[in-house]
């Protein structure tokens, strides 16, 4: 009798272990299918001509050179703005702020800001940057909107990096007669730099793939010139994927163009994440 019950319990254990593992297998399988489908759709379309050509309504002629330039321009706004804002905020919270209401307010604010849907940031950008500051759908408006969107990521990761700097390093610096700013600049920041950079790259990879805020800003689906300044209109990789996917109803080959653009986008993300991992493993100092 007892033997039978034990057998049943062990059987159930094995059964559910396998069932549970199926969930993981399912998720991995979907990931595999997704990659396979996208690569299969892009084969034959992803070529040097595609990377160096300009947009065209004819699928065979279309290239994404201008789109990639647009994404690079966008990042040229996002990188400095988020780094300056994010690292300064983290330094303020960890090094300067007294424990109290203001520090709590900023911390709670940042964690709530991180969970605001990205499309809401688009509305903010539309009302403030596009309309109020009259920046329209320029690179500057898109870049500033995107910077605010990824700001919480940079702040939180920089905070973690600064927190990880042991306090005896700071105390040693003070003991040598250094003042607070010198200590922050010469001791804390250099030690925290790998962690800060890792977070910055991760936030950047979020910004480069984010679509909704840019669509809300009214980035046009027209065949634009390659942008040459931050005040120019532009299109970016995710935007182009969006419009090509929508237009597959009209021209089936647009699906292939979208897939090829997705491959480019994923490769960029993959490279950025690899760099982040290398920085974390190679340069991070452990105490």
């Amino acid at each position: 009798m007892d033997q039978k019950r034990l057998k049943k319990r062990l059987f159930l254990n094995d059964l559910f272990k396998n069932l549970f593992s199926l969930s993981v297998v399912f998720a991995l399988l979907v990931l595999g299918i997704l990659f396979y489908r996208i690569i299969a759709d892009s084969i034959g379309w992803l070529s040097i001509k595609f990377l160096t050509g300009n947009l065209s309504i004819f699928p065979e002629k279309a290239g994404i050179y201008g789109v990639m330039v647009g994404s690079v321009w966008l990042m040229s706004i996002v990188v400095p703005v988020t780094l300056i804002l994010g690292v300064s905020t983290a330094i303020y919270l960890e090094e300067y702020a007294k424990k109290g209401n203001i520090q709590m307010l900023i911390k709670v604010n940042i964690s709530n800001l991180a969970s605001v849907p990205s499309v809401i940031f688009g509305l903010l950008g539309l009302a403030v940057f596009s309309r109020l500051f009259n920046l329209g759908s320029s690179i500057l408006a898109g870049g500033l909107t995107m910077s605010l969107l990824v700001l919480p990521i940079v702040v939180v990761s920089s905070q973690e990096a600064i927190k990880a700097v042991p306090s005896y390093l700071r105390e040693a610096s003070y003991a040598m007669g250094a003042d607070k700013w010198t200590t922050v600049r010469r001791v804390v920041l250099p030690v925290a730099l790998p962690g800060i950079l890792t977070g910055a790259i991760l936030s950047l990879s979020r910004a480069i793939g984010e679509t909704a805020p840019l669509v809300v800003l009214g980035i046009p689906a027209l065949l634009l010139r390659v942008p040459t300044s931050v005040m120019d209109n532009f299109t970016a990789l995710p935007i182009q994927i969006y419009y090509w996917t929508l237009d597959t109803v009209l021209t089936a080959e647009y699906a292939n163009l979208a897939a090829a653009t997705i491959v480019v986008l994923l490769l960029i993300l993959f490279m950025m994440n690899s760099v982040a991992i290398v920085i974390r493993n190679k340069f991070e100092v452990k105490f």
Partner: protein
Amino acid sequence: MSDRETDVREIIQNNIRNKKGIVNKIMPVFFFIMASVSVLTTIGIIVTLVTDAYKFFSAVGLSEIFSTRLAPLRAEDPTFGILPLINGTIIITAIAMLVAIPLGLTAALYLSQFASPRVRKTVKPILEVLAGIPTIVYGFFAYTFVTPMLMSLIPTLESKNALSPGIVMGIMIIPLVASLSEDAMNAVPEILKEGSLALGSTKLEVAIKVVIPSAISGIIASFVLAISRAIGETMIVTIASGSSKAFTFDITRSMQTMTSYIVEFTSGDAGSGTTGYYSLYAVGLILLSFTLVMNLIAQYISRKYREEY
């Protein structure tokens, strides 16, 4: 004291007072100003949403807002009933949760209770890749692969429907549920699990009778955060669910969520100053309230019901 000595002392003091003193006074102010940008962002979001939403609410009657008639782009007499959008948002979120919660929770159980350290170490980063893929890619996948596949199973399925983006969004959210509930499960002290194992429980019994009850607050918090994430998700639904404004419970048909309404309306010609333009901010405000309430609930649950060991 010689003259020379006082000179040196004066120079040093002047140096400290002028150069370093100023920098040390300026930098905290500079950092504080930078830190206040994040607070200003929040204020900016609330002010823009509330002021423009107010213009909308004062232009459109409450009985019209809480109706099922949504035709914002009609040239004459546009109507702005929000219920189709709320209905679409809830239905697609529900489909996503039906996928994400069971799969995410069981994946977390497998990884934290059953998997060997080696399997865990290889599988977890790959699962994280799922979470790192831009949502536009999932939108493409839902529209060009999942929808056609579902159409061969359900012949009545429309090419834009609620089912496909719901399922794909659920898959996208699996890693979120899995990693948050796994964190909660790992926080359960080893002694509780070992005690139960020592009494002769199988791993499954430990998982169900010890780990889940102890970690329940963190697990539920992860579900609530997943719901919040699904409500705010934009590109998958915009691409794969279309823009039908009909009030329907039929998941084989096109539905519009609050997020995709915002995208559709802005990428069209939403003339500044029209009721349609202000309706964007009203929908945005309602969307923000939804996600904010979900996040507060999640924080409340994980704080209030956390077991202390």
